[in-house]
């Protein structure tokens, strides 16, 4: 079976090379049978990699410890869901997942677009399969997942595996890597379309719509992956943080930032024919940053809590990056003529310039994060001394950037295309500015002495007001004409232009998340050694450490503190933070216990029993105001993204007006 798996990967590798060659030769010599066979090869690769993945997953599920991969990542006592998740728990498996997802995306792209863009598709295929070929090289030769343990000649079979890292045995961790990969891998599609459009000198903007849609889907997955990782860090790592500016977190943020910039600036290209070169650069850098992020995660070049062990992969990734960057730059330079802007910027006070500022700021943030992440590597290279920068650096740069972006979120939609007058701005921003001032005043009155936090609350009110005004204006117009009530009218409004109003919803999600981020300015914490039966107080709560219990199951042993939470003498809830020691890996972990509420989370970590004094438990208590709003805002953001993907009613009705006859006929047939 393992031979079949390895063979499937090897054949897929050969098919990928064939597909690249057939597509390129077929496109250059205009031989359709070659390009079509190149496309068929893509489906073949998907089928083969599905088989290979299925074999690996089957081995994991059945605890087949003849496989080196299974023995190192899984053990018998692990729940089935984590056995499955062990697929991406290690280097070889997660690279296989990468390849499989890429082949899945490629197959979907071809199935849905092969008729739409006949001249572009061979090139799209070639670019996708070139990337696929690179990852399959890794799967086949560098990190093969189907290595077997030699048994016999004095070597005994492995009885039980080493188990998945206990920190990864948590539900968001089981789905965080695949969603993040869906994001990472997905950005190759917009890149392939952009490059193919350059090669074939596409006229018109049809391909932009496709690219934008794909970017949005992958952007959604990337956002989800990042947020799941943040949720995991918050609930598992025990220090209550959701973001630590760790190199690997940064690696996932970088392409997200450039993709966000692209999603905005591509509107400039669609509506005004501007910034074409810029968009090419953004699409390409997003893809490069995805590959770079994967490289950063797997090469061990910067020290990180996530980083996989040192491996020989680094050189391969750098080589691949070098090739694609060189080819992309050459291609863009050769096509500069074709990418010339059709219009010019007319005024600093215009929608166009708000987009430019948005892009500038997002890029500045990308650069700052990249700079900070690579700082040890850069200083070692330039000054021969390794220097690292920490969270204060990232926060100092990115908090003002975040607030400025928030401001633009509110300003952008209200400002006119081409040019705006001060007078119209005054009218448009009258209410939002009042709400801004009110929110700042309210936050100061409630005790905030934190400049950025108060600004953030003010800006959140500002943006919320502008979004509400937009919805209200549009719905009232519809309600007035059609007699619908305002709620129905606002749904109708959204349906008519899903991109615009879905986009507002995404903005609203971001605003809500900023409320959550701002709460971090008011965090409280304490570490106490408490005699069991005793109590302590913090932030208006009283904590009664009632008792310590322990026990075990086949996967781990545990020790649990039972802590009653009281406020003003009233019992609220019992929290049970826990320490576990996983038997197979002998790894201790802490299971924090959280009382999640909209105003603030009470978060308890049980650090263990005191070593110096009997019967004393070490309890770390935290209060995290407003943290829940991050997860709520994220849900809103995902909903908004989904709305953006729903086709607008207006566009649907366009072909209808053209082909009335047929449509009427269809309708009568349907009845």
């Amino acid at each position, binding site marked *: 079976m393992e031979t079949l798996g390895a063979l499937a990967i090897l054949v897929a590798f050969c098919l990928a090379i064939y597909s690249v060659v057939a597509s390129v030769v077929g496109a250059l010599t205009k031989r359709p049978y070659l390009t079509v066979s190149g496309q068929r090869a893509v489906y073949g690769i998907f089928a083969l990699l599905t088989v290979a993945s299925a074999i690996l997953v089957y081995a994991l599920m059945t605890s087949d410890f003849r496989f080196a991969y299974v023995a190192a990542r899984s053990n018998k006592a692990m729940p089935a869901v984590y056995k499955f998740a062990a697929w991406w728990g290690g280097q070889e498996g997660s690279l296989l997942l990468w390849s499989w997802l890429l082949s899945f995306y490629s197959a979907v792209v071809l199935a849905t677009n092969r008729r739409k863009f006949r001249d572009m598709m061979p090139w799209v295929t070639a670019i996708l399969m070139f990337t696929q070929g690179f990852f399959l090289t890794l799967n086949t030769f560098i990190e093969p997942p189907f290595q077997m343990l030699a048994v016999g000649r004095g070597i005994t079979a492995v009885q039980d595996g080493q188990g998945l890292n206990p920190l990864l045995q948590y539900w968001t961790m089981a789905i965080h890597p695949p969603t993040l990969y869906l994001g990472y891998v997905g950005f190759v599609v917009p890149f392939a379309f952009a490059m193919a459009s350059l090669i074939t000198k596409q006229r018109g903007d049809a391909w932009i719509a496709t690219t934008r849609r794909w970017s949005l889907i992958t952007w959604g997955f990337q956002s989800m992956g990042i947020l799941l990782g943040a949720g995991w860090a918050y609930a598992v790592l025990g220090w209550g943080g959701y973001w630590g500016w760790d190199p690997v977190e940064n690696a996932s943020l970088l392409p997200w930032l450039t993709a966000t910039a692209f999603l905005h600036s591509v509107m400039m290209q669609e509506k005004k024919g501007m910034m074409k070169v810029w968009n090419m650069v953004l699409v390409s850098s997003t893809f490069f940053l995805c590959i770079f992020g994967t490289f950063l995660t797997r090469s061990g070049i910067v020290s990180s809590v996530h980083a996989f062990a040192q491996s020989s992969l680094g050189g391969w990734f750098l080589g691949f990056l070098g090739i694609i960057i060189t080819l992309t730059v050459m291609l863009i330079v050769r096509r500069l003529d074709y990418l010339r802007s059709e219009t010019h910027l007319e005024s600093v006070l215009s929608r166009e310039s708000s987009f430019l500022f948005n892009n500038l700021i997002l890029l500045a943030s990308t650069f700052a994060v990249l700079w900070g992440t690579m700082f040890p590597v850069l200083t070692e290279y330039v000054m021969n001394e390794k*220097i690292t*920068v920490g969270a204060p650096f990232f926060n100092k740069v990115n908090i003002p*950037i975040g607030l400025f972006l928030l401001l633009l979120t509110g300003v952008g939609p209200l400002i006119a295309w081409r040019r705006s007058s001060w007078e119209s701005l005054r009218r448009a921003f009258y209410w939002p500015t009042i709400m801004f001032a009110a929110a700042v005043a309210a936050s100061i009155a409630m005790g905030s002495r934190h400049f950025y936090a108060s600004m953030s609350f003010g800006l959140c009110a500002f943006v919320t007001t502008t979004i509400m005004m937009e919805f209200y204006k549009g719905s009232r117009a519809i309600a007035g004409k059609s007699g619908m009530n305002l709620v129905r009218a606002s749904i109708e409004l959204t349906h008519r232009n899903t991109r615009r109003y879905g986009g507002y919803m995404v903005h609203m999600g971001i605003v809500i998340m900023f409320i959550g981020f701002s709460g971090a300015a008011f965090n409280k914490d304490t570490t106490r050694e408490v005699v069991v039966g005793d109590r302590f107080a913090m932030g208006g709560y009283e904590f009664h450490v009632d008792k310590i219990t322990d026990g075990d199951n086949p996967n781990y042993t545990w020790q649990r503190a039972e802590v009653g939470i009281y406020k003003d003498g009233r019992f609220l809830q019992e929290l049970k933070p826990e320490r576990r020691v996983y038997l197979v890996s002998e790894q201790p972990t*802490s299971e924090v216990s959280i009382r999640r509420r909209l105003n603030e989370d009470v978060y308890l970590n049980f650090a263990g029993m005191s070593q110096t004094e009997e019967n004393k438990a070490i309890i770390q208590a935290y209060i995290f105001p407003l943290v829940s709003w991050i997860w709520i805002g994220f849900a809103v953001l995902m909903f908004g993204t989904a709305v953006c993907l729903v086709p607008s009613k207006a566009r649907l009705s366009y072909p209808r007006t053209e082909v009335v006859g047929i449509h009427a006929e269809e309708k009568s047939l349907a009845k």
Partner: protein
Amino acid sequence: MKTYVKFGIVMVGIIGTLVWLAASGINESKTYYRTVSELKTDSSQVGKRVRVTGDVVPGSIRREGTLVHFRIVEKEHNLFLNVTYTGKDPLPDTFRDNAQAMADGQLTAQGTFHASSIAAKCPSKYEADPNKHPADVPLNSAKPAAI
């Protein structure tokens, strides 16, 4: 062209502010990588923000109130460094005997290293090294009393 000049001025203003913020951020948080031997031999390191890496000496982890004392060893030169963890975040779960610990903090004149944050990488984190077993003795306080 006037538009582009105006636009340029605003952009330069924004970028200038960000560069200034970045520079001050770097100055505030830059940390030098030092080895245990460098800390032992060079007294000018006292009071500087540095990051030092070493293996946690088995059995050396001792909790005293909210402070945690332990020793790390630089295996090449067999040099030991006493570390006191003064930070408030809980220590990572991977921090235990034999783990590779990365401590950020300052060397005191007495020769003890005061760490404000600690990251630890368990030897078996992702890639199991067949020659090394995961630490035999887990972090003392972590093991439930019942066993």
